[in-house]
């Protein structure tokens, strides 16, 4: 069922902006892939370099290595000194950073269009010439430990998420955190980082995405000049990683300093593999939008607005991923309400959608929200580059960017109900519960200014 409105939003998606061109793709002789999308709305450009290696390619014992190598990529090459990379980008008026996920590692720069060749040259240099200095490595491990304390150890809800994945997966490497276990960080060895770099950092394992105020032909010429001379290298064989079917509910409880109980569910579901044939992942994306992601969605309406047992509630699903997919539901308790209440309410809502399905209004609203978000993404060069890079790095093609909204549009209420009935089942569920331990009210000490230094 497609209303006038969904038609309009679909038209907005395919809105031919004079400023934007379709992405173009090139493969260099050494195997490096380049995707360029011209967008002339502002005189800036983003470059993202995607390496198809993330924490799912690690082994037990070195669960830190993908992310620590990302940090080491800022510590200098044979030509560029430690910290020089960011200094050079900053002086060029640019911003740079990087991130590591389970599936890939991405380095990015945003600059004025005139500085694109400069940052391409810098990225090409560290693709081949990284110098890992043991003393720099030892110091950076301490920084990463601080990062782990900040982002996970002292964040009860992040720690709960880590516990959830460690419980939900028994074989697949999604079971360990991208930042790595603290024990593994304590046993680090710089040679592991160097071996990681030599294994995965090669032009034939990289996709360079450029979006912005550029001429695609010119970008190809620069890519040939800077990335072209790098040698292709053998990439280690990737063993198929799979998770045995889950046959029964799993559960983990975490005690941590907090006031409110918090519950997070993970249901094992498929991720998108073949955009032409798969329909279940699209139906799951619609289902998750019916459940969460806007104020009108079910979890907020039922748990926060009507029953008032939660202060917030949401649902998440990533359509694209190299490994198994997962639907997450979460809810934070209102005062006086327990994790057990939230857990039974979440299971009840999941069961209800499986039995009764979704209303035509909910189906329509979910699709409109999904499609509108795709329109809004076009406001940002960075977000557009992310979309193209994620598609390529998940084993799909950047061309699928246009196919995804078409497929979302065709999903029916029956399909949404059928994926709910098939996948939102207790046997495929892992429940993680934060059991809050309010820290004691401790007195603070005031110290005289003279003693403060």
């Amino acid at each position, binding site marked *: 069922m497609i209303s006038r409105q969904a038609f309009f939003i679909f038209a*907005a998606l395919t809105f031919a902006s004079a400023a934007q061109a379709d992405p173009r793709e090139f493969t260099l002789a050494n195997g490096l892939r380049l995707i360029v999308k011209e967008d002339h709305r502002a005189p800036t450009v983003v470059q993202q370099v995607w390496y198809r290696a993330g924490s799912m390619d690690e082994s037990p014992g070195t669960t830190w290595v993908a992310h620590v190598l990302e940090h080491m990529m800022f510590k200098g090459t044979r030509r560029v000194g430690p910290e020089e990379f*960011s200094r050079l980008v900053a*002086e*060029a008026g640019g911003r740079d950073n990087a991130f590591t996920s389970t599936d890939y590692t991405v380095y990015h720069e945003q600059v004025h269009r005139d500085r694109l060749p400069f940052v391409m040259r810098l990225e090409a240099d560290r693709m081949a010439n990284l110098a890992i200095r043991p003393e720099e490595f030892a110091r950076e491990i301490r920084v990463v430990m601080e990062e782990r304390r900040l982002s996970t150890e002292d964040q009860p809800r992040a720690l709960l998420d880590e516990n959830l994945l460690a419980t939900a997966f028994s074989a697949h490497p999604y079971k360990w955190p991208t930042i790595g276990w603290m024990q593994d960080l304590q046993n680090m060895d710089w040679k592991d980082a160097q071996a990681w770099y030599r294994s995965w950092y090669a032009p034939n394992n990289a996709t360079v995405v450029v979006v912005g105020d550029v001429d695609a032909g010119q970008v190809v010429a620069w890519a040939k000049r800077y990335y072209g001379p790098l040698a292709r290298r053998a990439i280690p064989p990737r063993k198929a990683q799979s998770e045995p079917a889950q046959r029964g509910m799993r559960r983990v409880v975490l005690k941590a300093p907090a006031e409110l109980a918090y519950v997070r569910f993970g249901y094992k579901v498929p991720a998108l593999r073949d955009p032409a044939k798969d329909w279940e992942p699209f139906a799951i994306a619609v289902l998750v939008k019916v459940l969460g992601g806007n104020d009108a969605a079910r979890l907020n309406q039922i748990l926060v607005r009507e029953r008032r047992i939660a202060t917030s509630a949401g649902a998440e699903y990533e359509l694209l991923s190299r490994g198994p997919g997962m639907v997450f539901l979460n809810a934070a308790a209102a005062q006086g309400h327990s994790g057990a209440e939230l857990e039974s309410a979440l299971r009840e809502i999941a069961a209800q959608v499986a039995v009764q399905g979704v209303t035509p209004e909910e189906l329509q609203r979910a699709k409109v929200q999904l499609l509108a978000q795709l329109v809004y993404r076009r406001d940002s060069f960075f977000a557009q580059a992310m979309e193209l890079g994620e598609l390529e790095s998940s084993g799909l093609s950047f061309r699928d960017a246009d196919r995804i909204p078409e497929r979302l549009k065709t999903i029916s209420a029956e399909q949404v109900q059928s994926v709910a009935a098939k996948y939102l089942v207790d046997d495929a569920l892992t429940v993680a519960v934060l059991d809050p331990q309010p820290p004691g009210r401790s007195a603070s000490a005031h110290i005289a200014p003279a003693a403060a230094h």
Partner: protein
Amino acid sequence: MRPPLRASITLLLLAAALPADARVQIEHWTTQSGARAYFVETHALPIVDVSVEFAAGGAYDPRERAGLGQLTLALLKGGSARFSEAEVDRRIADAGAQLRDSFDLDRAGFALRTLSSEAERKAAVETLAEILQSPRFASDIFEREKARAIANAAEAETQPDHIAEKRLYALMYPSHPYGLTATPTTLAAITREDVERYYRARYGAAGTAVTIVGDLNIDAARSLAEQLTSRLAPGGDVALPPPAPPGPGETVRVAHPSTQSHVLLGEAALARDDPDYFPLLVGNYILGGGGFVSRLMTEVRSKHGLAYSVYSYFYPFAQRGPFQVGLQTRRDQANEALRRVRDVIAEFVARGPTETELKAAKKSLVGGFPLRIDTNRKLLEQLAVVAFYRLPSDWLDAYPARLEAVTLDQVRGAFARRIAPDRLATVVVGATD
């Protein structure tokens, strides 16, 4: 797929407005009711972004009812004369729109992002106009949102970053409303009548700024601004008192079981209309604002591996906003990290930057201008600052030249005048020894 890790968190620079691209034409006017309106027309995408902000931020909270402003803002979404709360939710979602509230010490408001097609845009804007101008403040929704706010405040009080910031603000602004933080106790004291009174006093047209960026023409933008403001009461524009000068440089330590100590330093420093604005902006880039390349980052992270994130920023408000320095480090390293941070600040205030550092900072800040306005949403945020704070109409155009004109002596002088290293308030949450 898991959320990715980032090599560095984004560091907040001065939340400053930046120069308009040559292609950006800014229109501004006053609505019938007296609100300020700013507009940039751009048809490259079928999107309209709207920001409406009121002089109704945390600075207007009564001390014993801290949290009143933010609760009032949240309750605007709780339904209007014409639409129930659920209808508000559905109308926004059904239009494919996104409605986000925003709240700081000076400002309270909403950012609406909608498709530009007439039916969707009208539904979304009509809903926003309703909740801003005829809120219902139904008592059962008031009770629910108050309970949520209390729960969230109680949760926040268990977290070391929140505790540190709350204590620092109390030290920086001992007798000024900028120093207030909502607690379960202050929230519990709020009545529905307080909310209604607060709304009538603060959501007046004279303090209101409407900013619009996107795919509509000037006539449509004018009528949109009228629709959002014509039924607002007059008034709402009251000057805040200035905060007291910095105190004696007290240090407070709060025990917490976290694995890291959270260390914050700060003082009330910079107002929007301050003559030292540009020298402080450029100087702070060198001290602790410039991401990976600042002095604080080099000393604390790169050389000594003591922290993942270490930063300094000026956050300019209508009255003197904070100069704040912060880091988090393993409990037993907190004193070493604090000593190193204090040494870096003292050295910088005593001697100022080098000529090389100043040149690099200006290259980065001036060269990076286009990145600050290269999306509709970023442009909206920059323009909203100009609109709300009544910045001069050439503010955007003059910005790069004013940065470029900053001299070494100006940076040295501004830091020497404004930052007294031994009088910075200091808070350590975590280890107390």
